[in-house]
């Protein structure tokens, strides 16, 4: 999986290089290819070799620290476990369906119940849970942070009023938020037919609380630094409050806003894993914690698979934000990294 993504980013860079070099010099192509694809690949290989060499030297209570080969093996095992679990699930539903049909044939008035499958979540289920949770938390954070950032940037009074609060809440660790959020969610969120799991809400809200600050601060700075001439244009045209915000303020602060959003998403992803570990909420964090508690000889390798996956997903999330940023950015010449 590792190699695959490295390849992906390499292709990306190659495309970039190709688009820059409109008049491609064919004699240079092998060199270019090596630079954009070969060098990162070489780095990965060196990293893998070093990892393997160092790992073999360390003895732990669970045996030797696994090298790349062992980790790869566990990755395939995790995939197979996922496949088996899916098979079991579909078989379970098949059986249930047959049973129900039979029941109805015997007695048309019989109550048929469709019970959901309750097997243990696989590694891939946990990935999905984590991604879904971080997306929710991040979206909520953005919905709150962008408007606050805009009004703070527009009004110095509001900025002065809110700044101390923002600066105080910003450095709070997710581990400190978690107990408060957990207790409040269990107190407030009481329904007979819950739409969301409590654990999901706790994780998502913790992510939200931790990751909205960079967006607020960056949006504020972006909005308050709008070119004075553009502000004057808006005043001369007598744009209303909403037109001013949507036609002048937001477009000109989009670069700053997105810089903040990217930082926010990165923080959100880190926070989520920590929160899942601490609160035993489903997700990749719980997977890591469970393996740690399990303590079998494979555990360390399985944790490493999770760590690499967490890293890769974080990387992909950042790339996605970058793409989005490029799409909405009006300044196509600016280099966005």
């Amino acid at each position: 999986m590792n190699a695959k993504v490295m390849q992906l980013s390499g292709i990306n860079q190659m495309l970039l290089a190709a688009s820059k070099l409109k008049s491609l010099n064919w004699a240079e192509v092998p060199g270019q290819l090596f630079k954009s694809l070969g060098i990162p690949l070489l780095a990965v290989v060196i990293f893998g070799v070093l990892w393997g060499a160092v790992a073999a030297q360390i003895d732990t209570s669970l045996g030797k620290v696994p090298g790349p080969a062992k980790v790869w093996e566990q990755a395939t095992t995790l995939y197979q476990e996922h496949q088996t679990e899916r098979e079991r699930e579909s078989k379970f539903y098949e059986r249930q369906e047959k049973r129900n049909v039979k029941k109805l044939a015997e007695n048309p008035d019989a109550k048929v119940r469709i019970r959901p499958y309750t097997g243990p979540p696989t590694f891939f289920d946990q990935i999905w849970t984590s991604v879904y949770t971080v997306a929710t938390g991040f979206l909520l954070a953005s919905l709150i942070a962008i408007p606050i950032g805009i009004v703070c940037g527009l009004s110095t009074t509001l900025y002065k009023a809110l700044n101390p609060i923002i600066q105080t809440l910003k450095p709070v660790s997710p581990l400190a938020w978690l107990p408060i959020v957990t207790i409040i969610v269990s107190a407030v969120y009481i329904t007979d037919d819950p739409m969301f799991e409590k654990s999901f809400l706790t994780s998502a809200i913790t992510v939200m609380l931790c990751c909205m600050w960079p967006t607020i601060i960056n949006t504020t700075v972006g909005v308050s630094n709008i070119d004075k001439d553009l502000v004057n244009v808006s005043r001369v045209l007598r744009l209303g409050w909403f037109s001013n915000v949507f036609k002048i303020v937001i477009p000109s602060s989009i670069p700053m806003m997105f810089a903040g959003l990217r930082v926010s998403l990165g923080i959100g992803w880190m926070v989520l894993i920590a929160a899942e570990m601490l609160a035993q909420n489903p997700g990749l964090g719980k997977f890591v914690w469970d393996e740690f508690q399990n303590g079998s000889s494979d555990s360390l390798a399985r944790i490493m698979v999770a760590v690499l996956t967490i890293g890769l997903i974080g990387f992909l999330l950042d790339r996605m934000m970058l793409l989005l940023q490029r799409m909405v950015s009006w300044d196509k010449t600016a280099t966005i990294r």
Partner: protein
Amino acid sequence: MSIKHLELSHLSIEFPTPAGPFRALEDVNLDIEKGEFVSLIGHSGCGKSTVLNIVAGLYQATKGGVILDGKEVNEPAPDRAVVFQNHSLLPWLTAYENVELAVKQVFKGKKTKHEMREWIEHNLELVHMEHAMHKRPGEISGGMKQRVGIARALAMEPKVLLMDEPFGALDALTRAHMQDSLIEIQARLNNTVIMITHDVDEAVLLSDRIVMMTNGPAATIGEVLTIDLPRPRERVKMANDPRYNYYRAEVLKFLYERQKNPQSDTKSQTSEKNVDEKASSTNKQDEEAA
């Protein structure tokens, strides 16, 4: 003219600064007729932009005021369109969309969609920008951006067109082109224009009157020169016209004999102050960003 079109009466303005109030303008008086082209000329930092911004309504005079067609000016409005020194187009909109933003705002409910489109295109044609209508500011040259800025201002059908060194950032050749375009547009539309310039030739070539300002602080109008040259004026013919050269000499005399201190005390003081202001404002931004 019996009824006054635009009247600047006893304008004074003080800016609050850390070192106490700074009086930039003192008792500026000027009456401008409809269709008149007036240039403001003076040394850097004397307060030309400040005068223009007061007329635009972007600044409030501390004393005195501006009266346009019998009504006092106290806030910005599209009837006093401004062409800014560095074009100030919205970089995320095309030339067409930049003009459209202004047209939609000014003619909302007065023109149909179709009429608006024609009006936008008409104004862009006026400044010879029809070929690059759908390009963004980042894709066109400095002169073209300035043309779009002028088209945007003209499209508002302002009572007064205010231009703050509209061609200051352009090279000499482009500037000459732009001046010719402006002469042509002015001949067709006969707008009331106040233009700030540093360029003596530009002032004489374009203006009906040149208003020369004394050096700050507490700057005011030193002299007003009426340019009595027939229109249309052609750059090349003018170069040999004795009256043209006389006017030119008059302005130069004012600037370099009566108000001579382009590099000495006053200016260096103000420029120092500007630097200080900039430094303090960047500090503030840093604090905010931190």
